[in-house]
């Protein structure tokens, strides 16, 4: 990593001799090589002896203000040792008169051209020290401060012993220069060691971080990686990554973006930073080519720039492994989508095909669904593959080969035991061993399977089938991590198929019963056209309570009946049958519509199980000279609508009491005329109420649809109304819908009149 050591600045002093110059050059070399202060100071001290001094001492100031000698060099090594020993026993008093102490205090150099015994005694640290200095004939000295900026780090002392040359001002300058350089070196060493400390702490943090971190230089070389990065990138240790040749690591992976498109490495945030772009964190799907393992990584990169040039030196990338979170998220959305598909339709073979299509390629390259049919055989009901050619092959193979339920392995085993199986790292040999049947092997080979998961589809009491997921072409391979998701898919699909089967059975029964309760066909009314529509409430797939009927009676009279028995199921079906037959019988016996309803009311009151109630609308039609006379009688029912040739609607009939509960009933007959080109619409309350509570069709919606009636054929009109009701109910009716309509044709009456006369 970058450390900001300072270079020694240019030499200001003018050394007087080439010898002095040589000394500074040598010192410069020494100071540049080592960053360990003790070693460096020892070397500097030795450089001065004997060229500049007989004895050289370098003292440093400790943080607590005390002074310690770090280097002593002398021509006579005995003196050096003796002095070190003496200094250890009698440390210099930082507040004392010793020149070193004074220089360190003041930061000013001191030239002591000649030192008398008196002078030596005056600053000696005790008599032993004084004796040592006098004995060794301390003669002339220069003490220069080791200054770094404002601070004085210590002092460099050079001494001449005996009767050698005396130091002069030139020497002072030279020693000061040497001291300046040494001080710089010491300061750099301190900075360096601080930086190194920080680096070590940082490195300890990075190394131990769970997130993978790499540091890349501008040549694309990894200069740092932690163990998590090594784990992520498939290396044994960080050194394997940092020593790798650039460009040899990433080809081990397939890197995809969130939507599955292959990503160019140049799109990675680190590379983009070097290109001067400002990338945002990137979510990538990283697949290990060798194993097919899939990881989701959030990659964030930032730069380390040179403080002076602002050039990018390094890019630090953090790879946050969010595989677990992402998988859980994808699994949830996958299951939600699968559940939506499973709930969308009760046609389970179609639904399972869609689930297989959903699983491919999101989860696997190939997906098959097998169900146990009524005869106890395993039947492949859905299969999907990314490659249409191999899909065809797989379909052919699964048609010719239908596994028996007692086979020991594969789908039969999973269905029998209800336990999921997973096969990873499939090799041809393993295939041959795990699949007893040669067809199975052939199939798995044909689709080049690398991993297989088979999960049971659990019904309420037994396993009703199995879902097989196979990975083949894609680099991503199914793994244990996919097993839980696949099992959940199996459970949901199992439940859905089972309820669809039950629903289908019940619906069939209900529809059969329903058909028996409604007229098989509508009679032809002379001069008129008639149509009916009926949709039972889908959700409750029971026999509905709505009914209608059309019959002729008393010569050329016709009766339109529509009604709603409250409740559902067998009881309502019984009441429906009772209502239809009672009304027919009453009409045949010559009763008026109001009397017919009174008869039905009595019949309902006599029902053994208490209050059964029912609403009915009767419209009796009889021929008049130029039109038809309608007699509308209502018992708790919506009045029918008479739609004119321009689409205007009129409600006809007066409200009457519903039948079966309230006594006495109050029902009255209303008369109306109906002309050629008009349409009469009878309906049950399921029509306007469809889609409640929000977005219901409503009476207004119904009237709106009736506006178009004159332009539509009668069956188209009813179809449009039914479709609108189903749409507002989003396909899920909560109540039945019944519609019955009559339209008088223009030229009908006279022709039919003659025909009915002929019949008579």
């Amino acid at each position, binding site marked *: 990593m970058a450390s900001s050591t300072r270079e020694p600045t240019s030499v200001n002093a003018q050394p007087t001799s080439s010898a002095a110059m040589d000394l500074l050059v040598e010192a410069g070399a020494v100071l540049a090589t080592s960053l360990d202060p003790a070693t460096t100071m020892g070397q500097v001290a030795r450089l001065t002896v004997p060229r500049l001094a007989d004895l050289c001492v370098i003292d440093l100031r400790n943080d607590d203000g005390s002074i310690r000698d770090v280097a002593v060099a002398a021509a006579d090594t005995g003196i050096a040792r003796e002095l070190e020993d003496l200094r250890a026993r009698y440390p210099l008093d930082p507040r004392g008169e010793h020149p070193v102490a004074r220089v360190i205090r003041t930061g000013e150099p001191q030239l002591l051209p000649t030192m008398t015994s008196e002078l030596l005694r005056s600053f000696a640290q005790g008599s032993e020290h004084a004796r040592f200095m006098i004995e060794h004939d301390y003669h002339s000295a220069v003490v220069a401060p080791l200054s770094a900026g404002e601070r004085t780090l210590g002092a460099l002392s050079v001494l001449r012993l005996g009767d050698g040359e005396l130091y002069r001002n030139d020497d002072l300058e030279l020693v000061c220069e040497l001291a300046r350089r040494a001080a710089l070196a010491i300061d750099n060493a301190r900075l360096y060691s601080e930086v190194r400390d920080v680096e070590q702490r940082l490195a300890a943090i990075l190394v131990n971080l769970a997130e993978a971190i790499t540091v890349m230089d501008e040549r694309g070389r990894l200069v740092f990686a932690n163990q998590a990065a090594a784990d992520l990138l498939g290396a044994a240790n960080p050194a394997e990554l940092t020593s790798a040749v650039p460009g040899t690591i990433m080809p081990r992976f397939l890197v995809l973006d969130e939507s599955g498109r292959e990503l160019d490495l140049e799109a990675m945030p680190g590379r983009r930073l070097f290109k001067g772009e400002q990338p945002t964190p990137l979510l990538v799907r990283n697949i290990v080519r060798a194993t097919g393992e899939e990881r989701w990584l959030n990659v964030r990169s930032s730069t380390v720039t040179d403080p002076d040039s602002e050039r990018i030196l390094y890019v630090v990338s953090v790879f946050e492994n969010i595989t677990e979170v992402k998988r859980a998220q994808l699994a949830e959305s996958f299951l939600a989508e699968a559940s939506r598909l499973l709930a969308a339709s009760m046609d389970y073979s179609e639904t399972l095909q869609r689930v297989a299509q959903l699983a491919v390629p999101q989860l696997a390259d190939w997906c098959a669904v097998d169900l146990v049919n009524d005869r106890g055989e395993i039947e492949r009901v859905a299969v999907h593959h990314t490659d249409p050619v191999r899909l065809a092959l797989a379909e052919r193979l699964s048609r010719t080969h239908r596994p028996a339920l007692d086979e020991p392995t594969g789908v039969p085993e999973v269905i029998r035991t209800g336990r999921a199986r997973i096969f990873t790292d499939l090799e041809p040999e393993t295939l041959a061993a795990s699949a007893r049947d040669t067809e199975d092997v052939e199939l798995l080979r044909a689709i080049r399977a690398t991993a297989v998961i088979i999960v049971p589809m659990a019904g309420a009491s037994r396993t009703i089938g199995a879902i097989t997921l196979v990975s083949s072409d894609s680099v991503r391979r199914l793994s244990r991590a996919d097993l839980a998701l696949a099992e959940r898919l199996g459970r949901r699909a199992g439940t859905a198929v089972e309820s669809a089967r039950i629903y289908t059975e019940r619906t069939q029964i209900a529809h059969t019963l329903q058909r028996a309760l409604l007229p098989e066909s509508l009679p032809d009314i002379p001069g008129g056209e008639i149509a009916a529509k009926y949709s039972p409430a889908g959700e*409750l797939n029971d026999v509905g309570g709505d009914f209608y009927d059309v019959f002729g009676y008393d010569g050329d009279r016709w009766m339109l009946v529509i009604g709603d028995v*409250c*409740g*559902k199921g067998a009881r309502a079906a019984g009441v429906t049958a009772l209502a239809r037959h009672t009304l027919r019988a009453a009409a045949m016996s010559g009763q008026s519509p109001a009397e017919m309803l009174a008869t039905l009311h009595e019949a309902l009151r006599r029902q053994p199980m*208490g209050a059964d109630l029912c609403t009915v609308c009767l419209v009796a039609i009889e021929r008049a000279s130029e039109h038809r006379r309608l007699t509308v009688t209502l018992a708790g*029912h919506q009045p029918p609508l008479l739609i004119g040739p321009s689409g205007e609607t009129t409600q006809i009939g007066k409200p009457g009491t519903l039948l079966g*509960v309230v006594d006495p009933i109050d029902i009255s007959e209303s008369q109306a005329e109906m002309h050629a080109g008009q349409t009469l619409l009878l309906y049950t*309350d399921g029509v306007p109420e469809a889609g409640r*509570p929000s977005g219901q069709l409503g009476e207004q919606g119904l009237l709106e649809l009736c506006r178009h009636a004159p332009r539509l054929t009668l069956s188209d009109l009813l179809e449009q109304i039914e479709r609108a009701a189903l749409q507002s109910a989003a396909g899920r009716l909560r109540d039945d819908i019944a519609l019955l309509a009559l339209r008088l044709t223009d030229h009908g009456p006279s022709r039919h009149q003659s025909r009915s006369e002929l019949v008579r």
Partner: protein
Amino acid sequence: MLSLSGELDLASAPILESEIESSDLAAAAMVVLDLRELSFIDSTGLRVLLAAHERSTERGQQFALTQGSEQVQRLLSITRVSEHLRIMASPDELLV
């Protein structure tokens, strides 16, 4: 007084049926079904209302409804059930 809200249809009718039989209501001198918050009623719901009326009468209780939503009122009047039951504009009428 029993307050009904939401929809009274095939799905919710059994709830009202069982509530009518609760000891609180069985012991009261008068049963008032508050329909002010009831948005929808179908024929099955109507049947349960009528059954509640019948049950109250059997027990010698007075029975009344409060007005419901437009749809509820329409069904009550189309079926002319409204003529057979006491329907109050609000429960305050009880205080008069």
